[in-house]
């Protein structure tokens, strides 16, 4: 595989935490599931998997999709949010 093809089959993505504005940079194959990247993010940040919400351009996305399927481009950013919850002092079911 030539160098260009190799370049084309990968994509650089940024995950930005909305809590502290820190950024982590990832390089991932265009045809692998984003779940891998998100889990890697949680690992790096010492967070349990699934404890973060991820948004692209303000909206949720299916984690089993690939960058190609979601139409991501090189250098795109994924926002990581800590989920919020609320019930108003009632006992949690």
């Amino acid at each position, binding site marked *: 595989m030539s160098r260009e093809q190799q370049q084309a089959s990968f994509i650089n993505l940024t995950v930005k935490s*909305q*809590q*502290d*504005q820190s950024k982590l940079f990832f390089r991932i194959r265009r045809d692998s599931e984003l779940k891998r990247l998100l889990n890697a993010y949680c690992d790096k940040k010492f967070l349990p998997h699934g404890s973060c*919400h991820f*948004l692209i*351009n*303000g*909206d*949720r*996305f*299916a*984690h089993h999709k690939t960058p190609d399927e979601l*139409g991501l*481009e090189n250098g795109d*950013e994924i*926002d990581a*949010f*800590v*989920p*919020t*919850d*609320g*019930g*108003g*002092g*009632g*006992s*949690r*079911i």
Partner: protein
Amino acid sequence: MVIVSSTLKTKKADHFPAVVTMLSKCKKLSEILGKLTKRQQRIFKQSCLGHFLDLQFLSFSGNLVHKILLHEVEIDGDEQEMWFLIGETPMRFSRIEFALITGLTFGPYPEVSVDSHRLQDLYFGLKPAPNLDDIDSAFYAFDFTAIDDMDAVKITLYYVLERVVIGRAERYLADLWLMGLVDNLDEFNKYPWGSVCWRYTYRSLSRALRGQVGHYRVKLTEAKAKGKSYSSTYNLDGFPVAFQIWIYEVLPTVGRQFARCTNQRLPRMLRWMAATKNIRDGMLRTHVLSPSTPLIVRQQIDPTEEERMQPYYLQVVRFLGVDEGEYGGTIFMDDQTPTEIPSPPVEAADMSPPIIPDTAETFTPIPPADVDQTDTTFPTPDRPKKRSRPRRPSRHTEYREELFGDDPDDHAADTHADPPLQSHDVFSRLDMLRVDLQVFSARHDTSSQQVLDSLHTLIQQIRGIVPPDDRRDGHVDAHRSTSAHVTDLPRLDDQAQFCHVYWRTTSRRPAYANPIRQQLGGLVRSWPQYGPGSQMSPLRLVSDTLFGRWLDDGHISEYIAMLSHRQLVCREIVPQHWTVVSLHLYTALQVTYTGYLSGALAEGTFYPNSDIESFVMGRHCRLHRDWVQVDVVYLPLSLGGDHWVACEIHFRRREITVYDSLPSAHGDADIDSAMQPLCIYIPYLLHQTGFYRYRTDVTERLTPFTFIRPRQGIPQQRSDSGDCGIFTCMFIQYLGLGRPFDFGPEDGVHMRTRVAVDLWAGQLL
């Protein structure tokens, strides 16, 4: 006179993706001009290309340009004009627009004899016929501090002309005639460079798509055979940046989304700065092709009084020999419908001359499906198709017009004999159904089974009332390209059962210990995904809501997205003066505020690249109203991570009202600290995004907003019910509809049904 037809040059079915590059080195302009010394720059400024010195960085967006080029329509007449049709008003790109944007002059080519080879011999004496590549390398090798100031300016003028104004590929030979001409600055400054640049730009733009469709088809078949995708590639000569700025000018909503108008300078290209680097298809779809907020379309760029005085405008008008008032004023749309799509009888009524009320403006709510109006059933009230002279209202009028919709007469005009069912019908029927539900469910004993039954009925009704043709995306829902048809839903009995079982099984035991849940999980995954945004399965949304769980941000996001969509499709029922904003705005503001407290940020500044503006500009694909169009913004926010409240941010009153269904959960001190980020930073946010420039009716002040938390007249929840998420949803809905609160603590269960129904509806529509 030009006769503009409504037939697209490229049929809608033939639209293809493409990668467009511009050959002009506009991006390098600051680098090129930065080589000059201060004194040389002052001399450069005096020349006919002097204003290029002030051109702000503008990144070229090939995707935007390509999508607009695809909408060129055929014209009858041999004028050098291009007409585009997005929505209902055609837009003109002609020499007048070009002159107004670039400030270059037009005129007949004068006879100039050039016999000077001084510059070439002295500085570029490389070889007899250098190409542009050679010129590039020679130019970058110069040290302008070492040579004569006038010569440095001349060389730069030549270079800017050759590489920026007349963009050509590197392989072309350099135009040595130009190099001779530049040595005679007087003649050079008088030369009609607008005509030259227009020749290249127009030729390249008008021929860009010629033959591309067939080529694309062939290549696509080849690529598909190899299992690859393909998009065409083409280059644009000349100065296509002018075209891009023209797009911003004639489609102001688009300009506001993708660029920033930083000042009011002349010519117009100095005003703009591109804000969005890569404009993706999704954003184009939301904001241009099937816009959520009404697309404002200007037929042409109308020069202001000040512009009418400018020499470049006077020259182009004189050159074209037109009366400035009348040029472009006579436009005829031939009333033939596009041939590629059979038109339903409804649209025949549309084509008849509409009633033009006095207040009609040129912008129109655009049918989502695109310019081919024949295949859309969007609930657009009849608007006038054309006006011979579009009146230019002030921004304020535009805004009011947009807010308060159309004249009642206008509505009376569109009574179709047999109107197709549209999504606002579905919503109104949903509302009726909900009244039924209200009667049906006696307050306290609505058991889960009853709720499920009513949901069942609801879904059956939706199935019944949405005719098969309307189930395609683009009709019922313009913005979510749902691949799922309503018919693709599993049978509802299964679903109702499932809903119950799912809830029973998910909350108690871990998944690995629960075979039923594993099976069910498989089932859920095999169901179609609803909407690109929702990661949660609709079932989980509904089951959580129904069965007394706390709501998290997933539910709330879905709910406010539903409200926003409903506001869009039911313009007649739902007031338009408000919008909702994603709850993540609060997180972002909180971070900013923490940074401010810790001293990392100065007051009133935001983290660079924090993209916080996207909330205000409505750049999110499901919450897409710009704050400029509204007076009130509703924001659900989570206090301390365990209590939802609804905030009403009122721009005119500069006040935030907190609707809290359980004030005892968080005391005044809590709420005081929680509201600080909003109160302090909302004014700065408005200031930074240029809100006040568009809304002159609101006084601009940077002092913090105030907030109140009324205790009287706010429905309260039962303290142990965990209903605050539900109450928050209902607060926003009631406030948005302008209804007085008519529910109380005992309505929690009932309201869960209502929210669940709405979430269902939001998922289906």
